[in-house]
């Protein structure tokens, strides 16, 4: 009904290219999250979909229809802005009614639909207040009510939760998920917060420097990152990276670097022999102790998380790594340890291009 297709979308500001040729198919009813660091082009892409920015080249179609030349208001979209953009001189009721008023909807119908939207977002008592009299969370709900009242088939959201405090932000994630289920509309959501992306998205688009790095479900992206950038962007703490080379010997493939030697799965291609690579391994796949633990290290710092504990340790040659261990660990700062990586959870990236090799 309202899938969106982007074809070779480019946006330049003078000599600076914010978005350099992205193509993307967004399915109808999908919760798609665009994530990336500041300046990666995610907001510019969203603004091009909304019509607030005109693409330098490329094509945008909504529900099969090219919309490049349509005014923002004619595209059937709803948008929630980072600063919410509530009209300060209008009451909450008038804010929500605005989109209906400019469409010349009859007054009785406006009253009915505003009431329904307020009902959905649980803000009925606020209708006669001014935006400045609403709290952060209430303003957020008003902004959402204002967007849903016109029944858009696509919702665009530009970091809508960034102005909220941490607790409220987590609550609003659930709320947005619920809203998505209820409305069955397409949500396109921009954020720089990888945790937000992981928890809400059906699919995630990871962007960097105006290009798409990877498109996939949250688990695909977490478990099978296509580039070193994606691997490093997702997950807390950040994935451990070690530069080194791949050796293929009689006992199978091995990784050697930073004074470490690590067995790799047998399925590692022979083509990687002698290649400069970066080995990536998440903290939960760094195993401390046990029979296979080969490399020595020294614990430096312990960070208890409650359900687990992060151990920062020296792995020799000044390389610092992080392991996630059970919270009842007997390790302490300065104590020696032995560790190894789970071979099936090692990622190999090309040292030059950062592309996934295994």
């Amino acid at each position: 009904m309202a899938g969106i297709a982007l074809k070779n979308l480019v946006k330049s500001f003078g000599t600076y290219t914010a978005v350099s040729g992205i193509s993307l198919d967004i399915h109808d009813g999908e919760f798609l999250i665009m994530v990336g660091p500041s300046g990666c082009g995610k907001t510019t892409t969203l603004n091009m979909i909304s019509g607030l920015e005109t693409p330098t080249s490329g094509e945008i179609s909504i529900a099969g229809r090219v919309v490049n030349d349509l005014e923002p208001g004619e595209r059937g979209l709803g948008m929630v802005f980072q600063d919410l953009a509530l009209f300060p001189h209008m009451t909450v009721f008038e804010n929500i009614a605005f989109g209906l008023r400019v469409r010349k909807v009859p007054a009785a119908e406006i009253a009915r639909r505003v009431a329904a939207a307020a009902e959905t977002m649980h803000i009925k008592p606020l209708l006669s207040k001014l935006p400045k009299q609403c709290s952060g969370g209430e303003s957020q709900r008003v902004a959402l009510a204002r967007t849903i009242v016109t029944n858009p088939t696509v919702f665009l959201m530009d970091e809508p939760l960034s102005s909220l405090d941490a607790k409220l932000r987590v609550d609003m994630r659930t709320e947005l998920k619920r809203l998505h289920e209820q409305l069955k509309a397409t949500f396109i959501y921009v954020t720089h917060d990888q945790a937000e992306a992981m928890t809400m998205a059906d699919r995630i688009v990871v962007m960097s420097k105006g290009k798409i790095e990877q498109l996939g479900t949250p688990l695909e992206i977490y478990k099978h990152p296509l580039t070193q950038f994606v691997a490093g962007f997702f997950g807390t703490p950040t994935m451990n990276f070690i530069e080194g080379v791949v050796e293929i010997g009689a006992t199978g493939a091995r990784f050697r670097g930073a004074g470490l030697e690590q067995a790799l799965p047998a399925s590692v291609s022979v083509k990687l022999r002698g290649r400069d690579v970066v080995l990536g391994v998440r903290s939960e796949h760094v195993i401390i102790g046990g029979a296979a633990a080969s490399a020595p290290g020294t614990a430096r710092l312990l960070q208890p998380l409650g359900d687990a504990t992060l151990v920062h340790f020296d792995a020799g040659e000044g390389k610092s790594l992080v392991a996630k261990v059970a919270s009842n660990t007997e390790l302490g700062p300065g104590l020696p340890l032995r560790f190894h990586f789970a071979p099936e959870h090692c990622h190999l990236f090309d040292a030059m291009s950062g592309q996934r090799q295994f």
Partner: protein
Amino acid sequence: MNADVTIAAEAARKRKLRRQRRMRVGRHAILLAWAGVIVFPIFWMISTSFKDAGEWVAWPPHWLPHEPTLLNYAQIFAFGALDPTLSRQATEQAFTIWKGLGDAALVCTTASLLALLLGTFLAYAISRFSVGGKYFRHTILMIRMIPPIVVAISILIYYAIIIPYATTALLGVRISMFDTYVGLVLIYTVTTLPFVIWMMLTFIDEVPYTLEHAARLMGAGRIEVIRRIVLPLVASGMVVTFLFVFILNWAEFLLALTLTHPEVTTLTVLLNKFQSAAEGRLYGPQAAIGTIVTIPVVVMGLLIQKHLVKGFSFGTLRK
């Protein structure tokens, strides 16, 4: 020993207090003297407006009228031919405030509204689309650096000579801008436009872009966005700007003097005409007009002074 220290400290504290008090008294003395310099002419004007002819230039000066009279006010507010009781022997001409008040109100209101309308939209274009380039907003005020006398003569030549001749030659009708309401309104609009643009820029810059984006996404066109979002948010700024520009026009003298006579007569020009061959300057009626004209300016000034600071803070007060 301890007691000595306490006494010494106490004495030092007292010296410091005395010094602070002396400084405070000195500061207030200077400020009071300056206030006297500023307020004296206003006091003198009001006092003179209640004096009869003999007291205007009496020596030694009559600080307050010895025989207070409302004659000056009766004269300037007279309707039709001057009542014989109001006519002074020496005053052959009857001057009333009505013509000047009417013309000034008409010209100043029209010109200020016109400048406000044009200036607001220009400021919007400069704020939102950077019309004229990055430094245009700073260039605008430079227009005001040209002394009005330079403009006055050139405009006079256009109004009284070039435009009449050109229209006669091209259209066959002689159109003169000299001594017309349109001519004066135009020049007032043009000379105050930089102020309007400058002040409205600071107000429009404060309206976040995203409000307009949000409105446009909800289906409002550009004009509707300006009408429903931008204008309501800068309405108080528009009132302040209007009053400020109105006061400028209300007090303008040089252009009005140069570009009109005898048809259009604003208050400032009228004031200048208050003289007679026998008595010289008619200080009493002049003072009465001055007092009356000052009242709206003071009232407006009080109304807008809080906002004026904001308008002229060059955006530094923005959050």
